[in-house]
């Protein structure tokens, strides 16, 4: 364990936190992944809307694509043209953002055109001013992930044996999985449906009845990002940051060659602590919110 290694691990954690947060906000601006099923449904139950519909194959594969794209560009620039690491990562992230723009617009056009019979229009101004915001968030995500991969392969000891694009692919899949598991709940459970009763999930009867009007005018996806950036994004960042930080911390503090047992035990300790923390969350939520008043059955414990 050395101070430099610890600093790098801290940097990895910070980069991962930023990547996670921007990943989640990107999926909210574009309305991707699971909550998008309600946006898709809205037009079908008679609620055409002005929300972006960026259905790119679920978050994990799409983020894996952005990160892998950025990684190959960075790798080519580093290995083939001996560019500085930061510049290479930035150039790669730019290519990834362009790819994202293509996929996002094609998904918006395609999904809305496939709902012609429900009178869902295609609004070109939405493409024009929402797509750059989506691309900007992808830039941040893929930049951070590529930097994480570069640090793991070139700088942090022991060097990771996988090539940069493969590491970026795996971290991309992971950040997408975290983003779609964590941040999406804030978007789907809180922001899309603001006329459900507070303190319960969405009643199935309300499916598709998304909020379409904003404080002034019609709601668009940028309004959703504004909301989700306050809690959903940071939580996602926390989830992904914890993953990257804890996983690398234990192999940096404990030398994996002759202290492998300690590194593994440390990981198991983290897992147990997180299990207990979740139990505490469940306990406090049950105690504070209590059972639902409509329940008529027996409550014998």
């Amino acid at each position, binding site marked *: 364990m050395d101070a430099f290694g610890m600093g790098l691990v801290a940097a990895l954690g910070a980069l991962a936190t930023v990547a996670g947060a921007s990943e989640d906000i990107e999926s909210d601006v574009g309305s991707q992944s699971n909550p998008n099923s309600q946006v*898709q449904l809205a037009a*079908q139950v*008679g*609620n*055409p*809307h*002005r929300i972006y519909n960026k*259905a*790119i*194959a*679920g978050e*994990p*594969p*799409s983020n*894996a*694509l952005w990160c*892998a*794209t950025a*990684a*190959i*560009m960075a*790798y*080519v620039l580093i*290995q*083939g043209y001996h560019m500085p690491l930061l510049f290479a990562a930035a150039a790669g992230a730019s*290519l990834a953002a362009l*790819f994202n723009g*293509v*996929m996002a617009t*094609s*998904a918006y*056009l*395609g*999904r*809305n*055109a*496939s*709902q*012609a*019979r*429900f*009178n*869902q*229009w*295609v*609004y*070109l*101004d939405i493409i024009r001013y929402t797509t750059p915001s989506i691309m900007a968030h992808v830039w941040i995500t893929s930049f951070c992930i590529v930097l994480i991969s570069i640090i793991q392969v070139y700088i942090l000891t022991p060097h990771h044996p*996988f*090539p*940069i*694009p*493969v*590491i*970026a*692919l795996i971290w*991309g899949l992971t950040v997408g999985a975290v983003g779609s598991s964590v941040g999406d709940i804030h978007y789907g459970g809180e922001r899309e449906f603001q006329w459900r009763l507070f303190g319960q999930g969405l009643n199935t009867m309300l499916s598709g009845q998304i909020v*379409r009007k904003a404080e002034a005018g*019609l709601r668009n996806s940028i309004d959703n990002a504004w909301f989700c950036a306050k809690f959903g994004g940071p939580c996602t960042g926390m989830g992904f940051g914890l993953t990257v930080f804890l996983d690398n911390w234990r192999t940096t503090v404990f030398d994996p060659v002759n202290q492998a047992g300690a590194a593994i035990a440390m990981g198991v300790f983290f897992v147990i602590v997180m299990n207990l923390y979740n139990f505490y969350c469940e306990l406090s939520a049950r105690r504070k919110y209590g059972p639902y008043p409509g329940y008529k059955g027996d409550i014998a414990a």
Partner: protein
Amino acid sequence: MTVGGGAGGAPQSIEPKKLRIYGLVGSVVGIYLAYILNSVTGTNIFSFVGSLAALFAVVMGANAVRRVCAYGIGTGVPSIGMLALGMGIVASLFGLNIAEQLGIGILGVIVALVYSVIFGYVVGLIANRVMGFNIPIMEEGLSDLSGAGTMAIIGWSFAISGSLAYSAIVTNVINTGFLAIIFICGGLAILHPFNANLGPDEKQDRTLVNAVMVGGMSNIATGVCALLTLGLPAGMVQIVAGFAVWYYFYVWFFRLAKRDAAAVVGTGLLPPSAL
């Protein structure tokens, strides 16, 4: 528009059999054509033909996704694309390697294709018999998908390595990690078209045009990789070819979306019926 194939699934104007023949023949012929052009001229500038050959496979795969997913498989469209490419990676590496071990290096493409089609068929059988999906075209669709994934991987690997030799593929595509981008780009090229056009008014031509569009984008990515492995000229040719394909089909896709949409407006409120 005619309902073809008797599949009972998605309406289609181009028969799946025809598309399968186009896809398989087009990709195999394209890869060998690129190989021959490269070896006859002694350069690697024609590697971009391999990347174009992969587009045929992508179209076939996208059509297979479209047919299978029209039945609803319970886990969304993305999983099936990942499955296709997961099978494809194993099949393509195996085909190229085993052919070289047996001394028939050039036939590796065929070996990989045969293995992948058989494997796809077995997975389809499992899905129908063991898990009880009862989707009549499952075996057929998964054979198509697996074959398409394999041919796309081999085509793009050729575009990066400029050779069908196993050693060249390992050095240029696998050790550098470029297989990762082929894996995910190929996967998205196969699954994104149907996913992006999902809806009751989905049209086959729009989906397939979208597939070629994403495939063209993937060619740009493999072109960037080729900058490192094949040098500037071959890489640039590939990027330019990919960009041309992407641009042409993106404009075409936009035209089809305009044709199919209820209305395409510059800006505006909700449709009058919904206010």
